[in-house]
C-alpha cells in the first residue's frame, strides 16, 4: 500500500475517533432527553483546561516532573470533573426546560456555551491565549515507510473501547435498560419506578465524560488548546450526529467517520486544503440534510399506538 494512502487512512481514523467521542454525546443526550445540548462542545472543551490545571497543581506541589503518569492522572481527573460538570449543567439549566418547546432549550444551551467559554477565558490565567497541550506520547512506530504515531493508536484504541463500553452499558446493564426506557417514554418509565431526573443526570455524566476524552484528544492532537476550541469541535460533533441520524449511536459514529473522511481528503488533495476544510465539511452536512433530512441512519420516529 502506498505510504501516503496509509498515512491518510490513519489520520482519517484518528479524526473520526475524536469526532465520534463528541458526536456520541449529542446523540445520546438528544435520544434520552429530547434536547439539543448545543454547549456540549464547550462543556467538553473544559476538559483540557482541567487537565492542564491538574498538571500544574501536581508539578508544583508534588513532583516537579511527573511525565506521562501525571498526564494520565490529569486526563482521568478531567474526565471525571467534566462528567460532573455536565450533571451540574443539567441540574442548573437544562432541567428548567424539560417541558418547554425544544427551541427554548436550544437557545438556552447556545447561551450556556458562551457562558462556559467566557468563564474559561476569564478564570484560567491568561485564558485568551492558546495554551500548549502536552502530547500523550511522541513515540513513532515505523512500519515500512509508514510512520505510525503511538498517539494515533492510543486515540483509536481508547475510542473503540469507549464506544464498546457505551454500547455494553446501554444494551446489557440494568442502568442502560432504564436509560433506554426513559428515552422512549418518560411517563411510563415513572410507573416502572424509574426516576427520569436520575437517568438524565447519569446520561449527562456519560455524555460529558466521553466528550471530555474527545476534547483532550483534540487538544493533544493539535498540541494546543484555546478557550473557544469547543465551538468548532461542538459544531463538527453536532453535525456528525445530525448527518448520521440524531439519536442513533451508530449514526453518530458513521457521521463522524464521514466528516473525518472529507476533512482528511480535502487536506490531502487540495492545495492549502487545511484552510478550506470547514467549507467542505459543512457543505457535506448540507448535502446530507437535503438528500436525507433524518440523517443517514435516522429512523422515522416510532408511531405511538
Amino acid at each position, binding site marked *: 500500500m502506498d505510504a501516503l494512502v496509509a498515512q491518510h487512512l490513519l489520520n482519517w481514523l484518528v479524526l473520526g475517533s475524536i469526532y465520534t467521542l463528541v458526536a456520541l454525546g449529542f446523540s445520546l443526550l438528544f435520544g434520552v432527553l429530547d434536547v439539543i445540548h448545543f454547549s456540549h462542545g464547550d462543556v467538553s472543551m473544559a476538559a483540557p483546561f482541567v487537565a492542564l490545571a491538574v498538571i500544574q497543581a501536581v508539578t508544583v506541589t508534588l513532583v516537579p516532573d511527573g511525565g506521562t503518569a501525571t498526564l494520565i492522572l490529569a486526563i482521568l481527573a478531567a474526565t471525571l470533573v467534566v462528567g460532573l460538570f455536565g450533571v451540574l449543567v443539567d441540574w442548573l439549566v437544562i432541567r428548567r426546560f424539560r417541558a418547554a418547546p425544544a427551541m427554548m432549550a436550544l437557545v438556552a444551551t447556545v447561551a450556556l456555551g458562551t457562558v462556559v467559554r467566557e468563564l474559561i477565558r476569564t478564570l484560567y490565567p491568561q485564558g485568551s491565549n492558546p495554551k500548549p497541550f502536552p502530547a500523550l506520547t511522541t513515540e513513532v512506530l515505523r512500519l515500512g515507510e509508514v510512520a505510525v504515531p503511538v498517539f494515533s493508536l492510543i486515540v483509536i484504541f481508547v475510542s473503540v473501547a469507549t464506544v464498546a463500553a457505551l454500547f455494553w452499558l446501554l444494551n446489557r446493564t*440494568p442502568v442502560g*435498560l*432504564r436509560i*433506554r*426506557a426513559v428515552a*422512549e*417514554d418518560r*411517563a*411510563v*418509565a*415513572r*410507573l*416502572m*419506578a*424509574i*426516576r427520569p431526573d436520575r437517568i438524565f443526570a447519569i446520561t449527562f455524566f456519560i455524555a460529558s465524560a466521553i466528550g471530555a476524552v474527545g476534547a483532550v484528544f483534540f487538544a493533544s492532537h493539535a498540541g494546543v488548546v484555546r478557550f473557544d476550541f469547543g465551538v468548532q469541535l461542538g459544531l463538527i460533533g453536532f453535525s456528525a450526529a445530525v448527518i448520521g441520524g440524531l439519536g442513533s449511536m451508530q449514526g453518530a459514529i458513521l457521521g463522524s467517520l464521514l466528516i473525518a473522511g472529507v476533512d482528511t481528503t480535502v487536506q490531502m488533495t487540495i492545495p492549502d486544503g487545511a484552510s478550506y476544510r470547514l467549507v467542505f465539511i459543512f457543505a457535506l452536512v448540507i448535502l446530507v440534510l437535503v438528500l436525507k433530512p433524518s440523517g443517514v441512519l435516522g429512523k422515522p420516529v*416510532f408511531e*405511538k*399506538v
Partner: protein
Amino acid sequence: MLEMERVNTSYGTVPMLREVSLRVGEGEMVCLLGPNGAGKSTTFNAICGLLRAESGQVRIAGRDVRDCGTEALASLGVGFVPEGRRLFPTLTVRENLRLAFDAARAPALEFAAQIEKMAQLFPRIRERLDQRSGTMSGGEQAMVALARALIGEPRLVVMDEPSLGLSPKLIDEYFQIVARIRDQGKAVLLIEQNAETALSIAERGYLLVRGRIALQGASADLLRDDTIRHMYL
C-alpha cells in the same frame, strides 16, 4: 385499596375532574365508565400521580399518592395498563417485563418464575420474549401490557381502556383473562368505554360524565339504568 376523595383537576383553566370520589376495595373489581372526553384518562393520570390533583386526595394502600410519588406506586403493589398500552417499543418483551418486575421490589419473587407464570397466562408471550415489543401486533401488545402490569404480583391493577383497538374476538379473550385476575383476588379498576363488557365482569361501576361522577352502583343495577342504557346499550 384505592380511594379518590373529592379530587379536582384542571388543564390550564379548563376544569377536568370535579369532586371525583371513588373507591376500590381489597379484591374488588370496579369499572369506571364514561364517554369520550369525560375525564377517564385524567382520572387514570390523577390516580398514578402523573397529574397533580388540585384538591382532594388519592390514596393507594393507605398512602397519599402526592406524598409517595408515581415512582413508589409499583412497590406499593399497583400494576398499571396505561391507555394505548404504552409498551417501550424498541425494548424487547423480556425487557419490558423486567422493568415492571424490578419496579415491584418483591424479594420473594423470582423473575424466571414470574416469566413462566405470565407465559402460562399468555401463551403467545413465550416465543416472543426476545422480540421488540413495537413489532408485535396490537393484540399481542395488549397481552404484554397486561403481563407487565401483573408480573410483580400487584394487589391492585389499574387499566385504562385496555380493549381499545382490539377485534371483538380478542376483546372476549382479553376480558376472560381480566376475569381470571379478578378471581385471583386482585383489586381491579377497569376504566372502559365498553360498558356492557365492563359491567358484566365488574362488581360495581361508576359513570363519569363531563368530569363528574354522574352515577354509581352495583353492576346489575347500572345495567338496568336508563342513562347507561341510553348512552351505551
